[in-house]
């Protein structure tokens, strides 16, 4: 987006929240005017926090070195300030760093202002809690000679970290609810649980920083604490980059199939989604859902091994060509068997053309011998094959496809999977706008919900050519008639 967006483009509720938070942060920091603030320590800590946040935005470093950009990487500095400084001063420490921090999405200025305000409020609240419990005395008061009172010093520190976490979570939920118009329940759900453990670790590191800062070794020694934290954040950033690259590679595998077999554009992606819907309806747990989705996405990857000439052939296939195409489950399994994380998806890729009555290929397995994941993918594959337009015939409506699937349940498909698909369709409907290009990209997080073009289920914008007799050995239930 070229022009920068400002406060005016934000929903009214969010605007109110940002202004109120900024006012609240100002009120938290105002008592510094009364004096009694160790300005040198404030400047050092604020400078340190700003320095930590800066590399992600630095024009020279950006793009050349990978730096942690996740917000919250440097909370130990803020928590050390919470443990060392009076509440108004702790609120000030957060502001410069938050104002120069890297922000991904527009409107950047508003987001930065909000971030600064919420961090200032959270830091002030945490410092209040810490002070009330006598944390500063436990750390050795003002004098550097007194040793910290150790088992007790953990209590105010833990409470302060908890307060910091709670306030941040509450404010995050508020902005999600107002700016992105998420329902309040879903905005808060999971937010607290996810952030509790990291905040505890940050609290411990902050405490160690505060102890060393107060000690005779002075502030430089406190910096040593930051190094392991910084490295773990850096590694985490690398991890996310590598994971994104990995997903791109999987997508490339799928695209390679799509390029070869032009009849099936977007098919893999949709089968992945339908398989996931069925698996979710059957009550499988989250990790398995992901594997089943990959099974659906990669089910036809073996078509890479089928000569392009055969895949793209116009006209009836000879028995030899049909036999070559029917090798694709085995090719696919051969390709992906070395990918450890795919787990049972590998079996699903091998067996997705088996039929319940044992007349499928490659092994002619029957009933329960067919892996569960393969039975899921088989139904999803057939459903998408029927509801999408191929160059040789038009798409069928979803209702007709479901009727056909139900007719073949028992002989070709597992009735449980068909019933699962029917339930999922009645619950969520079927949207065909997903293409292979968009797969894996996280839902855009802006102020508007991602666009969802209203389109009749089953309608595909593909070119409408005159319907020809079907002749691909794809898992269409109509094959059963002839069998």
């Amino acid at each position, binding site marked *: 987006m070229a022009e920068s967006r400002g406060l005016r483009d934000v929903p009214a509720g969010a605007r109110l929240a940002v202004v109120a938070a900024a006012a609240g942060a100002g009120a938290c920091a105002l008592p510094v005017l009364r004096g009694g603030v160790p300005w040198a320590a404030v400047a050092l800590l604020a400078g340190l926090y700003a320095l930590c946040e800066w590399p992600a935005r630095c024009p020279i470093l950006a793009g050349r070195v990978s730096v942690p950009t996740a917000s919250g990487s440097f909370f130990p500095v803020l928590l050390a300030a919470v443990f060392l400084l009076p509440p108004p001063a702790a609120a000030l420490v957060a502001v410069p760093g938050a104002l120069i921090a890297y922000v991904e999405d527009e409107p950047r200025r508003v987001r930065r202002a909000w971030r600064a305000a919420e961090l200032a409020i959270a830091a002030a609240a945490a410092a209040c809690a810490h002070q009330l419990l006598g944390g500063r005395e436990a750390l050795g008061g003002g004098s550097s000679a007194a040793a910290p009172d150790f088992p007790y010093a953990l209590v105010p520190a833990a409470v302060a970290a908890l307060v910091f976490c709670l306030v941040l979570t509450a404010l995050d939920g508020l902005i999600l609810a107002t700016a992105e118009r998420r329902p309040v329940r879903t905005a808060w759900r999971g937010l607290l649980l996810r952030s509790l453990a990291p905040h505890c670790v940050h609290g411990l590191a902050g405490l160690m920083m505060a*102890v060393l800062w107060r000690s005779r070794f*002075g*502030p430089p020694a406190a910096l040593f604490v930051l190094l392991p934290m910084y490295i*773990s954040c850096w590694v985490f950033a690398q991890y996310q980059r590598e994971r994104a690259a990995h997903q791109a590679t999987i997508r490339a595998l799928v695209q390679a199939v799509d*390029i070869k077999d032009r009849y099936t554009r977007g098919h893999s992606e949709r089968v992945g989604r339908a398989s996931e819907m069925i698996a979710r309806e059957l009550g499988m747990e989250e990790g398995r859902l992901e594997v089943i989705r990959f099974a659906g996405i990669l089910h036809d990857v073996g078509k890479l091994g089928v*000569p392009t000439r055969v895949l793209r052939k116009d006209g009836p296939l000879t028995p030899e060509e049909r036999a070559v195409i029917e090798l694709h489950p085995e*090719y696919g399994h051969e390709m992906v068997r070395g990918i450890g994380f795919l787990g049972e998806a590998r079996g699903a890729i091998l067996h997705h053309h088996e039929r319940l009555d044992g007349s499928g290929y490659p092994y002619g397995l029957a009933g329960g011998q067919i892996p569960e994941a393969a039975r899921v993918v088989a139904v999803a594959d057939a459903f998408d094959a029927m509801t999408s337009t191929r160059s040789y015939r038009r798409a069928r409506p979803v209702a007709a496809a479901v009727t056909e699937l139900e007719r073949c349940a028992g002989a070709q498909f597992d009735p449980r999977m068909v019933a699962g698909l029917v339930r999922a369709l009645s619950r969520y409907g079927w949207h065909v706008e997903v293409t292979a290009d968009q797969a894996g990209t996280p839902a855009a997080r802006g102020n508007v919900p991602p666009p969802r073009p209203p389109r009749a289920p089953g309608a595909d914008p593909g070119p409408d050519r005159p319907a020809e007799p079907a002749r691909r050995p794809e898992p269409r239930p109509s094959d059963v008639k002839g069998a």
Partner: protein
Amino acid sequence: MAPRPPALALAVHALAGALSVWAIAATLRDGLADPGTAAAFGTLIAVGELARWGAREGERDPAPLASAGALGYALLGENAGHASGHGVLQVIAVVVASALLGSVPHVAVGRGPRPDQAARRVLTVAFAAVCFQPLYHSGRLDDWFGRGPYFAFVLLLLLLLTALCDAVVAALLLRARTRYPFGPLLGDELRGLLGIASAVCATGTVIALAVAVAGLWALPVFCAPLLLTQLAFRRYAAVRTTYRQTITSLARATEIAGYTEPGHARRVAELSRAVGRELGLSEGELTVLEYAALMHDIGQLSLLDPVPSGATARLPAAEQRRIALLGGAVVRQTGVPSDVALIVERQADPYREQPLPARIVRAVNAYDDLAEGAEGPGGSLNALEQLRLGTGHDYHPQVVESLARVLARGCLTRVPPG
């Protein structure tokens, strides 16, 4: 068959073993000084060793918590204001005993620490303790640097020095085992210092300083951040492994499609990696080279008909370059670093226009294609001879000679397909 460890490795193991035995014997004779501190650090090290569970093969430091605890104990001069009376030998004895204790469960399931790593741990701890304890106990450290901020920096510097020595020892051991050139190995070890090793050093320093100020409570408080670091490294390593597997299977696509011989991509990747090592590439460059070698034939997927037995080396130059460009286009879509795509694209250019990794891929690919037809050592020699004849235009002479050295060493015999 397990190769016999070379003399240098044996010497290092013997030195570490002798040091440990001497230290434990001396400590048993004289008794433990300050047993509470020794027990606390011993527990930390043992727990850190236990956290080795789930470590992957080739992880740089599978038990960072134990390393940091050991270094912290070596640099510990006082405990909450009281001088701790342990000397160098006690440090070694405590570290060895608790590491042994912590690895009992690992040894029980047959996955004990590798001897190289154990020996290095003993030597680095001994080095740090020898540098620090005598100076500290004689009071010289206090005279020179005082007890304020400078003291903290001295500790950090000492640990950096220790880490440097450890890197040199590690590179020497690797060199003795693999006969790769020493320079790049040391470079890799030094680059590795930027990762978990620097976190270990910083944590060791912080442990020593924090225990001096706050007593033994500092130990559990500071374990958590380092455990987080270890977890982050594990996840990173896991996703890298998965990524490599995916790229390998992408490379298999050409074999399954019948465009190339079974095992061709894998052989070219392994041989390219060995040649790259021989030519002194760093670990990061080797990874890029390996990915490029795995995917060098991927452009053939875009062909309507397969090349006869996939041997691009026998095709006309223009056709080779066209396939290379197609491959580069496919690789660009896969999200791997663009360096990989560049190598794949340039693999068929004359060597004077190529970057070094592309030269390696070109020569190794041609070698594998040419050696494919003939079985036995004769085929291999013939193929090398043809490469040497092509060094005027196609293949870089230095790369071909490195390839010949790698093959002569016999560390890479041709693997059967499958």
